[in-house]
């Protein structure tokens, strides 16, 4: 037993903490530093699914039917597997068309039908109010248990104004009003509320796990101990195996399946789930991760359900008077763990309040937009053309709706009390919202659905639900005569609500779900097919079903199904009234900026603007009301199916053009890049040509200078000494030779570079070729007092190459060596080696050698390395040409240091065709 003051103080403290968390979330959002912008918070907010019915009821269900509590959580986990497909589509649709509730979603899909919106709202209110009552009851029952202890039953009812539950209801109404109705527009999310709900999800999970751990390892010695001790009670045997659920002997496959399906639908369709998953979704990419996290959350919160249920039964004894639904509280309490009991109570309260807050926000939005607004708009003084800012009024309607919904729930709780109707209401509520499934899921995947079909399906399904589930639950509570159930109303057995013809042997839930969904789907599909969709239904169907194809980007605009005339002033006035002047101004300014118009006054009131305004208004008052409002201030042309098709064609034509344009510009870009690259290559070639020309000119001018100067001098000096004259003439001859050599080599080089050189390939014996070259150059060496020797193998394989060109290479290398070797002691050596697949020729000398830094440059045209003063004459083309010849023959040429400091030129030639690449020049005989 805990003193009431403590329980109340802790509860009040918890609610204050909740206010603080929500206020923190809202403040951070205002600062632009959102706390809910991640998948973790998003997933935790989904856990609002686990209400007090989960927190207390799972254990109750497990105590009654063993694993039968599981389908309620297996369903959502299965649904999460499809989240990325189904939920993401719902989110995209809702955010594109600013849809704020499930009623709005369904109504908007079927041509923005106000009737449909009202029907969905009605079903929701009827289905959800008892569920709200259940949460209140859980809070109240928990309180009673804590205050009065396990042994005593609750005292006589207190007057309602002194009842704690009533206070909790009012506090929650205040919370919901403060954090749920800050603003009208859906674009601004209820960040504070989401943060608070995520916080509550952590609290309830933590509390439930704490109790589970306490019971399993505190009271008992682990799960095995609980199981072992349960063996004593024959009543508990059935709980620990499949089958035997709810008293039937065989495992109820149909029931299991039905309950799973039901939970699967409800996780998407319950108003609070729609609110959290769809409306409050910050980023649809979070869905993928949140789906896994939410599944994990469900797993965790169910971990200790069976141990708690069985442990409680063992502890109190089966049928020991203690309600299994209170085990979470009564087990710690009975063991004297009062603090833990208090924690458990706060956990239960967080489960209940979370559900209450979100459900109330969602339902109040629906009631305001889909019940009150349409009626209000019909009143004189409130219609669209009347003046005045309606935003405050709208918010007040919503606030009133919140209070009304909560009070309705409280009233139901007071009236229904402990009746059967309340206990089983969780699943009954699920079955009510399951009626939305055909219209909603059909609506986003099937273009053929119509408003009439959806409405008929909804109402039909709802009627069957009421008859087979709702009324029987009332009868079981004693509010209807028992004869209503058995034999049936007016004594007609065929009409028995829980055994409609042809289907007996099913439990009441499966039975009801089967019949209601059968009627629902048949009517929806049947009527939709019987009378095809009208223009507005068809156009909305397209926008919903193909939402992913109609991106928001300007390149591929979604088609706008609207034709008519509108005046800017009317649209501005309307927006001012429903959005408030501030938001309206913002909207028009954004639109002006998007369309590239200088200021708001210059905006053209075309279909696009009307569509934009209508979407924004939909966020505030729901799409059906927005449609009515907009239609009343503009002159619309009624659209026929043909118009819809025409608009669609235009849009797709536009899209084709946009795509073609994009492709064109892409290919243009590619072509530009190619051209630029080609141009750069040309420019660099041109540059190279310039350099080459400049070098050639320089090389030609140098000997020409000597020739001209010396001949002029001889001409002008007839009395020149014969010796001097002869010296001059010798120079002229040698410079002329230098010029012709240069001209020949330039031509050679140019031919080779342009690919016009002629190659006369033959079988070449390199051994013979090298000895010939050595013989030819012997004279040059002798002149300098130097020698050239050849080191050749006895036999070498023939290679395929141009012998004259290779001779040219050998002569070039040898004469180079002859030029550089020191006089008298000069020595050059030619070595030929045969390797596995190539021949390597090395020419090395004992000259000054080539510094390592300059080795790469020796093969560049006109690059004569070394000291010009001491360097012998050359054209600067001999080595580049030699290298070209070797490369053309499939080999490569390089230079390295010879031991003793001389130069060592080497080249290799492949033995067979196609070989010769990829072999290093290791093994050349430079050492």
């Amino acid at each position: 037993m805990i003193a009431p003051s403590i329980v109340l103080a802790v509860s009040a403290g918890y609610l204050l903490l909740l206010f603080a968390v929500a206020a923190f979330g809202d403040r951070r959002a205002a600062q632009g530093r959102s706390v809910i912008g991640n998948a973790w918070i998003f997933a935790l907010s989904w856990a609002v699914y686990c209400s007090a019915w989960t927190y207390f009821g799972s254990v109750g269900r497990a105590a009654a039917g063993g694993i039968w509590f599981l389908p309620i959580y297996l369903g959502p986990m299965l649904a999460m597997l499809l989240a990325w497909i189904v939920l993401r589509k719902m989110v995209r649709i809702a955010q594109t068309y600013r849809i704020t509730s499930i009623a709005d979603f369904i109504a908007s899909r079927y041509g923005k039908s106000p009737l449909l919106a009202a029907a969905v709202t009605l079903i929701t209110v009827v289905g959800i109010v008892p569920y709200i009552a259940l949460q209140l009851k859980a809070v109240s029952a928990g309180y009673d248990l804590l205050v009065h202890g396990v042994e005593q039953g609750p005292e006589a009812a207190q007057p309602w104004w002194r009842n704690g539950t009533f206070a909790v209801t009012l506090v929650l109404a205040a919370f919901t009003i403060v954090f749920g109705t800050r603003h009208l527009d859906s674009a601004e999310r209820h960040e504070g509320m989401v943060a608070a709900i995520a916080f509550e999800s952590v609290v309830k999970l933590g509390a439930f796990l704490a109790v589970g751990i306490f019971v399993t390892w505190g009271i008992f010695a682990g799960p095995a101990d609980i199981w072992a001790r349960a063996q004593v009670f024959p009543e508990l045997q059935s709980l620990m195996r499949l089958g035997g659920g709810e008293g039937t002997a065989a495992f109820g496959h149909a029931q299991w399946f039905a309950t799973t399906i039901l939970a699967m639908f409800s996780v998407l369709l319950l108003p609070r789930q729609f609110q959290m998953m769809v409306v409050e979704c910050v980023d649809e990419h979070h869905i993928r991760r949140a789906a896994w996290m939410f599944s994990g959350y469900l797993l965790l919160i169910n971990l200790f359900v069976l141990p708690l249920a069985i442990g409680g039964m063992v502890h109190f004894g089966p049928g020991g008077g203690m309600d299994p639904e209170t085990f979470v509280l009564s087990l710690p309490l009975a063991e004297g763990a009062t603090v833990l009991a208090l924690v458990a109570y706060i956990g239960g309260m967080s489960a209940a309040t979370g559900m209450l807050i979100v459900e109330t926000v969602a339902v109040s939005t629906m009631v305001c937009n889909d019940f009150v607004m349409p009626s209000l708009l019909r009143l004189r003084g409130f219609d669209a053309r009347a003046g005045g800012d309606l935003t405050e009024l709208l918010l007040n309607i919503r606030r009133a709706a919140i209070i009304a919904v909560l009070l309705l729930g409280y009233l139901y709780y007071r009236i229904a009390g402990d009746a059967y109707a309340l206990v089983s209401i969780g699943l009954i509520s699920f079955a009510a919202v399951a009626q939305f499934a055909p219209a909603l899921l059909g609506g986003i995947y099937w273009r053929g659905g119509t408003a009439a079909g959806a409405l008929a399906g909804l109402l039909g399904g709802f009627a069957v639900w009421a008859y087979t589930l709702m009324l029987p639950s009332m009868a079981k509570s004693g509010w209807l005569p028992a004869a209503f159930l058995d034999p049936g109303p007016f004594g007609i057995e065929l009409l028995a609500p829980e055994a409609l013809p042809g289907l007996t042997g099913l439990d009441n839930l499966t039975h009801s779900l089967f019949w209601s969904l059968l009627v629902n789907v048949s009517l929806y599909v049947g009527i939709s097919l019987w009378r095809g969709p009208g223009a507005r239904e068809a156009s909305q169907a397209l926008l919903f079903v193909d939402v992913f194809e109609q991106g928001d980007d300007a390149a591929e605009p979604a088609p706008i199904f609207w034709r008519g005339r509108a005046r800017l002033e009317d649209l501005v006035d309307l927006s001012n009234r429903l959005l408030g002047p501030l938001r309206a101004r913002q909207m028009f300014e954004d639109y002006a900026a998007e369309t590239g118009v200088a200021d708001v006054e210059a905006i053209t009131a075309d279909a696009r603007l009307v569509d934009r305004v209508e979407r924004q208004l939909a966020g505030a008052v729901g799409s059906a009301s927005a449609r009515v409002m907009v239609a009343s201030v503009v002159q619309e042309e009624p659209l026929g199916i043909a118009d819809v098709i025409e608009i669609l064609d235009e849009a797709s034509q536009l899209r084709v053009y946009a795509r073609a344009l994009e492709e064109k510009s892409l290919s243009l870009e590619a072509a530009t890049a190619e051209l630029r690259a080609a141009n750069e290559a040309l420019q660099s070639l041109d540059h190279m040509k310039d350099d080459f020309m400049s070098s050639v000119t320089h090389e030609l001018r140098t000997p020409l200078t000597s020739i001209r100067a010396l001949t002029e001098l001889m001409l002008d000096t007839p009395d020149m000494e014969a010796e001097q004259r002869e010296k001059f003439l010798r120079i002229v001859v040698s410079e002329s030779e230098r010029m012709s050599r240069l001209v020949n080599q330039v031509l050679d080089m140019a031919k080779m570079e342009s690919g016009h050189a002629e190659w006369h390939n033959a079988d070449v014996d390199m051994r013979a070729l090298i000895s010939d070259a050595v013989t030819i150059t012997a004279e040059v060496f002798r002149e300098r007092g130097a020698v050239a020797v050849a080191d050749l193998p006895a036999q070498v394989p023939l290679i395929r190459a141009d012998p004259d060109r290779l001779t040219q290479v050998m002569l070039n290398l040898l004469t180079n060596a002859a030029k550089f070797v020191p006089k008298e002691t000069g020595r050059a050596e030619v070595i030929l080696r045969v390797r596995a697949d190539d021949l390597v020729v090395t020419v090395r000398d004992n000259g000054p050698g080539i510094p390592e830094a300059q080795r790469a440059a020796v093969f560049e045209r006109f690059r004569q390395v070394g000291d010009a003063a001491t360097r012998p004459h050359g054209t600067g083309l001999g080595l580049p040409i030699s290298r070209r010849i070797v490369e053309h023959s499939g080999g490569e040429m390089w230079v390295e240091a010879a031991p003793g400091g001389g130069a060592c030129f080497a080249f290799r030639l492949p033995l067979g065709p196609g070989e010769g690449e990829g072999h290093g020049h290791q093994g050349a005989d430079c050492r």
Partner: protein
Amino acid sequence: MGTKVLIADDEPNIVVSLEFMMKREGYEVLVARDGNEALEAIRRERPQLVLLDGMMPGLSGFDVCEAVRADQSLSGTRILMLTAKGRETDVARGVGAGADAYVIKPFSTRDLMQQVRDMLA
């Protein structure tokens, strides 16, 4: 004391012809085979005129010209640039480096002599 002329060129045969011309005119001739040698000779011998080849290994003729012009004590030195590169940029570069005259190879011996006489007048 006679007029000193420095011939700076790395092509021996061109040096032969220039040397002949300058000697015939009665000038005292100095020869340098590269830029460094030329700059050294200018500083040491203070020639009145330098026939400077633009393209020499090591320090180029342009570099030598710039170095001379940067040295106040050598301000009296006349410089005649000779180059086998006839592109406009090369001429501009020579003038920019501070040469008194710019002659493109191959040159007319008579014109060159006249230019030399004018510069030393």
